[in-house]
C-alpha cells in the first residue's frame, strides 16, 4: 500500500472499529442495512423539521424578548441583554440563563436562529446517545424520533423560539452535566476528565439555573451519587462531584428564589387550601397520565419486560435516571401551572431509559429487532405527520 494511503486508511479503519462499524475482510467498512434505513429516515425527518423551523416565525413572547426588557427598546447590544435580564430576574422570573440565550438567538435573526435550533436538536439526540452508552446511527435516529413522537407539545417545546431555548438547549447542558456523574458510576476506574473540577462549576450553575424542576432534580441526583460513592463504593469523593453539586444547588436557589417569581405569583388570585390542593392534584395527574403518558407507558412496559420477563436487573445508573425523572415530575407539584411543554426534560430522561433498555434487550434477544423496528417505524411516521400537521395548520400567535 502506498505510504500516503496507508497513513489515511489505518487511522480510518481504527476510527471505524472504535465506532463499532463492522469491517469486511478486505478492510472496507460495512454499514448494515438497518443503519442505512435509519440514516435515510433521519434525513427525511430532519429536512421536514428544518422546513417547519423555517416556516415558524418568531411569535408570542419572542417579540417581547426581542426588546431590552428594562427599557422596551429593541435589542441593540449585549449590554441590553444584561440590563434586561437583571430587570427580568427582579420582576418576572429566574430563568436568566435561558432567556439571555434566547435574546442572543433573537438578535441573530430568524435564519441563524433556525440553524442554531436544528444544531441543538441534533446535539440533543447525540447527548441522548452518549447517556445511553450507544453512539450509533440507529440509537441516534431513535432518539430523534422519540423526542418528537412522545412529546406532549412539539410546537411549543421544539419549534417556537422561546420554547426551543428553554427546553431543547437547556436539556443539552443538563445531560452534559448528568453524564459526568453517570460516567463516574459506570466507569469508576476511568480517570476524571481534565480540569473537570473547574468546568463543572459553570456547568453545574447553568444546570441548576435552567428551570425550576430539572435544576433541583439534577442537584438531588448529584447528592444521591455522592452518597452512593461514599457509602456503597467506599471511595473518596472526587472534588469535581462536590463542585458540580454545590454549583447546581446555587443555580437552583437562584432560579427558584428570584424576586421576579414572587412578583408574578402575587398577581395570581388566591385560592383556598382545598381549591389549591385539588388544582395541583389535577395538574399533576394531567401531566403524568396525559402529557407524559406515552413516555411513561413505554418506559414502564420495557422495564417490566426486562426485569420480570427476561429476569434481568436494572443497574445503578438506571435507578438514578428514574429517580431524577420522578423528582423532576414531582417538583412541579409546587408550581401553580404545569404546562405540557414543561414535561420535556422528564420526557427526555424517560427516553434515555427506553433506549438503554432497548439496546440491552436487543443484545440479549437479537431477533426482537423486528418488533423494535416496527414500533420505531410507526413512531417515525407519527413524528413526520406531527411536523406536517404543524406546517399545514400553523397560525403564528401574534
Amino acid at each position: 500500500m502506498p505510504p500516503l494511503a496507508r497513513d489515511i486508511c489505518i487511522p480510518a479503519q481504527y476510527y471505524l472499529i472504535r465506532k463499532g462499524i463492522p469491517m469486511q475482510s478486505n478492510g472496507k467498512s460495512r454499514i448494515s442495512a438497518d443503519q442505512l434505513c435509519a440514516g435515510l429516515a433521519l434525513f427525511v425527518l430532519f429536512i421536514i423539521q428544518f422546513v417547519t423551523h423555517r416556516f415558524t416565525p418568531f411569535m408570542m413572547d419572542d417579540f417581547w424578548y426581542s426588546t431590552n426588557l428594562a427599557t422596551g427598546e429593541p435589542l441593540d447590544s449585549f449590554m441590553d441583554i444584561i440590563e434586561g435580564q437583571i430587570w427580568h430576574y427582579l420582576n418576572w422570573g429566574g430563568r436568566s440563563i435561558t432567556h439571555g440565550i434566547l435574546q442572543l438567538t433573537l438578535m441573530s435573526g430568524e435564519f441563524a436562529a433556525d440553524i442554531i435550533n436544528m444544531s441543538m436538536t441534533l446535539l440533543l439526540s447525540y447527548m441522548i446517545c452518549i447517556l445511553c452508552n450507544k453512539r450509533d446511527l440507529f440509537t441516534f435516529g431513535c432518539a430523534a424520533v422519540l423526542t418528537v413522537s412522545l412529546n406532549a407539545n412539539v410546537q411549543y417545546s421544539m419549534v417556537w423560539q422561546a420554547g426551543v431555548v428553554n427546553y431543547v438547549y437547556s436539556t443539552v447542558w443538563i445531560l452534559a452535566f448528568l453524564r459526568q456523574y453517570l460516567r463516574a458510576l459506570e466507569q469508576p476506574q476511568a480517570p476524571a476528565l481534565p480540569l473537570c473540577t473547574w468546568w463543572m462549576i459553570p456547568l453545574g450553575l447553568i444546570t441548576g439555573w435552567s428551570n425550576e424542576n430539572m435544576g433541583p432534580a439534577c442537584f438531588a441526583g448529584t447528592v444521591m451519587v455522592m452518597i452512593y460513592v461514599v457509602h456503597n463504593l467506599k471511595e473518596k469523593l472526587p472534588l469535581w462531584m462536590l463542585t458540580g453539586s454545590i454549583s447546581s444547588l446555587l443555580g437552583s436557589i437562584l432560579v427558584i428564589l428570584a424576586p421576579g417569581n414572587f412578583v408574578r405569583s402575587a398577581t395570581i388570585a388566591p385560592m383556598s387550601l382545598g381549591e389549591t390542593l385539588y388544582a395541583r392534584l389535577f395538574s399533576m395527574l394531567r401531566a403524568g397520565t396525559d402529557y407524559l403518558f406515552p413516555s411513561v407507558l413505554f418506559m414502564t412496559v420495557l422495564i417490566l419486560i426486562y426485569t420480570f420477563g427476561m429476569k434481568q436487573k436494572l443497574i445503578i445508573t438506571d435507578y438514578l435516571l428514574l429517580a431524577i425523572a420522578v423528582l423532576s415530575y414531582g417538583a412541579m407539584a409546587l408550581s401553580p401551572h404545569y404546562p405540557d411543554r414543561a414535561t420535556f426534560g422528564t420526557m427526555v430522561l424517560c427516553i434515555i431509559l427506553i433506549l438503554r433498555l432497548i439496546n440491552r434487550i436487543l443484545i440479549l434477544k437479537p431477533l426482537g429487532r423486528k418488533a423494535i423496528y416496527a414500533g420505531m417505524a410507526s413512531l417515525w411516521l407519527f413524528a413526520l405527520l406531527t411536523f406536517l400537521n404543524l406546517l399545514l395548520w400553523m397560525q403564528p400567535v401574534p
Partner: protein
Amino acid sequence: MNNNKIPASISQQIAGLTGPIAIILSIILLLVCTYALWDVQTAQGVGLYLAIRMGLEHTAGLDILCAGAYIFILLLMILLPCLLLKHLSPLAFLRLFALYLAFIPAISTAYLVHLTDGPLFVISPDLWPGLTPVALYNATGYMFPVLQFAVPAFALLYGCGYALAENSDNEHIPSKFSFPRVFPALIFIAVLLMIATILFYPLAPLTEYLLWYVLLLTAFHIWEKLISASRNLQMPGHILTCLLLVRGIYRIMELISHYRL
C-alpha cells in the same frame, strides 16, 4: 390432628386477594363512570330533549333512564368481550375496563341521540375543496394517534410473546409465537373505517370509537393469552393495570370538571 399446616406465603396471599380486589375496584369504577355519565348527559340535555319530544313535563325519570342505558352499554362493551373471548375472571374484566377507560375516545351522549336527525351519507367537508393529498390527510388525520400508541404497543406485545416462546416449554405458547395474521385483518378494518369516515362523515366519532375498540380488544386478547401462559407476567400485568387505571380516572375527572353543572 395434623398441625403441620404451612402458612401461605405473602405472595400467595396477595394472589388470592386479587380477585376480590378486582371486583371491588370494578364496582367503584362503574359507580364513578355512572356519576360522570350522569353529569355529561344532564349537561348536554339529553333527558330534556327526549322529554320535549315525548311531550313530558318532568325530565328526572328520563335522565335516570338515559344514564342507566349508557352505563348498561358501557358494561356490555366490557363484559361481552370477556365472555366471548373466554377471559372469565374479575382481573381480566378489570384489565379490559382499565384499557377501555385509558384509551377509548369519548362520544358525546347528545351525538348519539341526534345521530339520525340528518342524512348519514355526507362526504367529509375536508374533501369538499377537492381530492388532494392535503384534503385526504385532513380527512383521515384523526386516526393517526393510532401510530403513536397502537402500533408500538402491538410491537411490544409481539416482542414479549416472542421472548416467552423462545424460553418456554409452556404448551400455551406455540414454539414460534407470532400473530402476523392478525395485522392484515386490523389494517383492513382500519382502512374500511377510514373510508366509512370519508363517505359517512356524521359517523366519524363512531368510526374512530370502533377503530380504537377493535384495537383494544385485540391487544387485550393477546395480553390475556400471554399473562395466562406465563406466571412471570402476573405482576407486570397488575402494574400496567394500575397505570392504566390512573389514566382512566384522570380522564373521568376531566369529563366531570368539564360538564359538572
